[in-house]
């Protein structure tokens, strides 16, 4: 039996070694232009940033915005579907050239991928139901509270750091998380309330938004680490789209209102 075990252990180690990949190279700006296609990751569960239309194609602010970038670069746009937990591995492994989908820039993520200058902001709020009567987000720091959150999304860390007494249930996507909240599996959800409208309307629940903006995050385009040429070009493109009013126009088209907290583009970008 010992021999069998040693054989199994050796095989396991060998397989683990074989499984370690030669890292896939992220494409340079030149390679993207030469190929004629830029691959952009969009999360279709964050309407109106990204969602499926009647033809089951991904549309939304992110798709239009990425289309403008592709136009500026003179290449075709290829939209790649990503989810909250896998969007960073997709960029880091070179499967896509950059990722959108509410990519909040933070120091943890910046250890793994690079960020451009911000494209838009997201203002966090608390989504709950009429059953809950709290009026301030800090009241949710209570053991009786269970947050239903999306795995890998920015507010998870915010709750860990600021609402330590509350419990958290993590699900994989926004439709499931909002449905779980509607079914009474949790007390509240902290996220960008602007993105929740589509999901909330699918459930016959008396929703309530706690009227206290919690925090403001800046969302950028996420690119592979050290792809400096691409990042530099994207920075200029993002500034250009802001300066020409294209970003504001697209935001209004999809959100039906101005950005609550505009980025405030400057030439020093």
């Amino acid at each position, binding site marked *: *039996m010992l021999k*069998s*075990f040693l*054989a*199994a252990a050796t095989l*396991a180690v060998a397989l*683990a070694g074989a*499984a*370690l*990949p030669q*890292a896939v*190279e*992220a494409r340079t700006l030149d390679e993207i232009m030469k190929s004629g296609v830029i691959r952009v990751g969009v999360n279709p569960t964050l309407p109106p940033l990204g969602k499926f239309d009647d033809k089951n194609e991904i549309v939304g602010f992110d798709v239009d915005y990425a289309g403008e970038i592709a136009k500026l670069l003179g290449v075709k746009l290829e939209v790649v579907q990503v989810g*909250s*937990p896998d969007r*960073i*591995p997709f960029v*880091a492994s*070179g499967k896509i050239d950059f990722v959108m989908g509410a990519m909040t820039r933070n120091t*943890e*993520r910046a*250890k*793994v*991928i690079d960020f451009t200058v911000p494209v838009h902001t997201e203002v966090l709020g608390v989504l709950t139901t009429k059953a809950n009567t709290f009026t301030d987000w800090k009241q949710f720091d209570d053991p009786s509270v269970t947050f*239903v959150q999306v*795995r*890998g999304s920015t507010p*998870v*860390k915010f709750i860990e750091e600021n609402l330590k007494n509350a419990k958290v*249930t*993590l*699900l*994989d996507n926004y439709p*499931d998380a909002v*449905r*779980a909240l509607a*079914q*009474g*599996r949790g007390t509240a959800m902290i996220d960008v309330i602007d993105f929740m409208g589509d999901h909330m309307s699918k459930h016959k629940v008396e929703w309530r938004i706690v009227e206290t903006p919690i925090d403001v995050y800046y969302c950028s385009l996420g690119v*592979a*680490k*050290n*792809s400096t040429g691409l990042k530099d070009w994207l920075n200029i493109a993002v500034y250009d789209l802001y300066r020409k009013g294209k970003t504001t126009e697209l935001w209004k088209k999809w959100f039906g209102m101005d950005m609550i907290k505009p980025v405030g583009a400057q030439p020093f970008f």
Partner: protein
Amino acid sequence: MSYTLQYGQIWPFLPRLLEGAVVSLQIAVLAFCGGLFIGTACAAIRTFGPRWLARVAGLYVVFFTNTPQLVQIYFLYFALPDMGILLSSFAAVVIGMTLNAGAYLTEIQRAGFESRRASEMEAAEVMGFTRLQQIRYVILPHVARVLFPPLSNQFIIVTLGTSMAAVFGVEELTGEAFNINSQTFRSIEVFTVTAGIYVVLTLAASVALAFMGRALFRARTELI
């Protein structure tokens, strides 16, 4: 771009992965034991029970072996609340996995029951055993020996299947791996360590079951 392995970032999270492994084992043991109970009952019904009841058990098996386990748990977790039944994540996963394991264990055990020797049954009948006594004293000891290896395999399958509990917010081994991955983004390191823990977990279970099989039923199980 070259990738530098950084296992140092993962080791601080090892206790969380091990806690997750304990939850995985809890789900596996509960689902397997429950499934074994259901499977034994349904296999007995399908082999010895009245025809209509055998058909009902057959329908149960057909339904659960021809639909994905993920869909079954999804139904329990997200569809039942619309009918007023709210199961916790853990309960939905355990019940779903139990019902699924029960269907497969029914078929495994039915094969075992049908491998019984006619001469044994005739001897039992001559001795005046009731049908229940025949199952309890003649058939079960015989089939236990034959069935132990496939049952052990099924336990491993159930153990690995617990990974889908992560989808429903249960922080078992895979769920913890997902969480750590979303914090560190060291996917290769996180999932290599997680895979290693699964290998250790299932090999340990295989060894324990092999010893148990030899001690209780003289069943020989080849590990590799």
